[in-house]
């Protein structure tokens, strides 16, 4: 067993767990600046998490085992997803398992459990949120798969490590299909992470909320785990975007020097990405839920177009 690969894998997991709340805090800071408010501190998400971990858990009377188990399952799904996306190195222990389709499956597993937990207690808000989540999910998932298929067609593999290696370490080539796929991916990740055109992440107790409606019954450490999982999901999607569309700087080797260099590049890229996300959220208004099919349908069609453009322009005549 390659020691460096194991080390890089563990380091990636730790980096994901540590950086995810900071990324969330950074996005909130940028949003506050852009909206002319005074910003919360960068570590605000950590303060919230530690506060929640110290609180007691209050459970509804008719909450089942599933309700109590769901936060742990969701958290481990998201941690695994964030760990298998190659960000620091492509030479990882989990690299053979880090398949794009498996990753979509992991996200789907977490989604199913959070939706079930939302319906478990039986409040109307919970089941409303669950239904909307599944509605968004079933529209977003095919688009996400199509984006992955475009990248897979270019590198002839669905393994994330191979995709990153092909895109980052071959001779520099402009792939027009990736421009389409990038737009589609941005739209999908906005929808999947409950960001503004589809859902407002800062809202509580409104009829339009989706993600917050499902977790309304959670408290204490359960809520902390779910919040942490949500920031891990955002982190995983950001890393996926970086890995697919801006993979320059991700090394093939896993020695300490290149890992440190890759870490610095990653933080820089995440900072820029977070700012862009805050900019998108500030500039756009939340759309009605019935406009969501149009939004995600467009994402799907763009992803299909990316595949078509790849077949026409990039396979050679």
């Amino acid at each position, binding site marked *: 067993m390659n020691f460096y690969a194991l080390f890089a894998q563990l380091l990636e997991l730790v980096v994901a767990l540590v950086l995810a709340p900071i990324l969330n805090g950074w996005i909130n800071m940028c949003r506050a600046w852009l909206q002319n408010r005074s910003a919360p501190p960068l570590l605000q998400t950590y303060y919230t998490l530690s506060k929640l971990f110290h609180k007691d858990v209050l459970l509804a009377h008719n909450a089942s085992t599933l309700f109590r188990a769901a936060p742990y399952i969701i958290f481990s799904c998201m941690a695994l997803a964030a760990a298998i996306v190659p960000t620091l190195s492509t030479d990882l222990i989990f690299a053979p398992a880090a398949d794009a389709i498996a990753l979509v499956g992991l996200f789907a597993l977490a989604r199913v459990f959070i939706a079930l937990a939302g319906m478990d207690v039986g409040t109307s808000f919970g089941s409303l949120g669950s239904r909307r989540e599944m509605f968004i999910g079933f529209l977003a998932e095919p688009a996400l798969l199509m984006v992955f298929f475009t990248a897979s067609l*270019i590198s*002839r593999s669905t393994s994330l490590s191979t995709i990153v290696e*092909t895109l980052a370490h*071959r*001779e520099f*080539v*402009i792939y*027009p*299909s990736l*421009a*389409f796929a990038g*737009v589609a991916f941005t739209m999908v990740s906005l929808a999947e992470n409950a960001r503004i055109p589809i859902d407002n992440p800062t809202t509580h107790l409104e009829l339009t909320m989706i993600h917050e409606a499902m977790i309304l019954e959670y408290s204490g450490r359960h809520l902390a785990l779910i919040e942490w999982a949500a920031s891990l999901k955002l982190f995983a999607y950001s890393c996926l975007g970086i890995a697919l569309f801006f993979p320059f700087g991700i090394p093939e080797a896993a020695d300490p020097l290149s890992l440190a260099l890759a870490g610095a590049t990653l933080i820089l890229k995440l900072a820029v990405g977070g700012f862009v996300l805050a900019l998108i959220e500030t500039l756009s208004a939340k759309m009605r839920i019935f406009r969501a*099919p*149009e939004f995600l*349908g*467009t994402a799907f*069609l*763009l992803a*299909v*177009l990316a595949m*078509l*453009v790849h*077949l*026409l*322009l*990039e*396979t*050679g*005549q």
Partner: protein
Amino acid sequence: MNAMLLNAVPLASQVINLCAAIMLLLGFAMLAQRRVLTLINLFMLQGLVLFTSTLIVALSTHQNHLLWSAALTLLLKVIALPYILHRLIRRLSVKWDIETLLNIPTIMLIGIALVVVAFNVAQPISQLSGTITRATIGIALACVLLAFLMMITRSKAVPQVIAFLAMENGLFFAATSATYGMPMVVELGIALDVMVGMVILGVFFFQIRQQFDSLDIRHMETRREP
């Protein structure tokens, strides 16, 4: 094998391919856009992309007459026509007009089908052509068909005219990519035609509005001759 083939393609051709992909993207964006003002801005962007790609073709193949047509594109499609359109919608006070009754997912699906058809039709043509831009003929054809679709689906007059102009963009792009552009006389003639067409249509807009109090073309169908 794929990557090896690509590495043989020069950088200029790659940039042209990127421009072609952006043209197609803008074509879809225009198809799905409800607001008239954004539509004009998208049209201007498409002109800009067309100018860039023509310029790169001209510089990389040393075709001097293409420089002229690139300049013509910049002057006409990026500056003059958007300016006229902006003034027109301000004078007609339809600046914030929104087209309702537009089933965007269905239209986009039809658009995808059109793109597939265009790519398949263009495949044999591009094999005959020897230019460095031959792969983009399919995309140029798809742009033309998308503009056609837009003309069919829109009911307001201004978006229809923009669709007409976008179709001209697609035709021009097809000409550049298939044969390094048409003879200068033909190009000048088309440019003049588009210009004059725009002026005449501008007059038409005012006539239509005077007659029906609206720029909705559907009113013309229900009109009875006395």
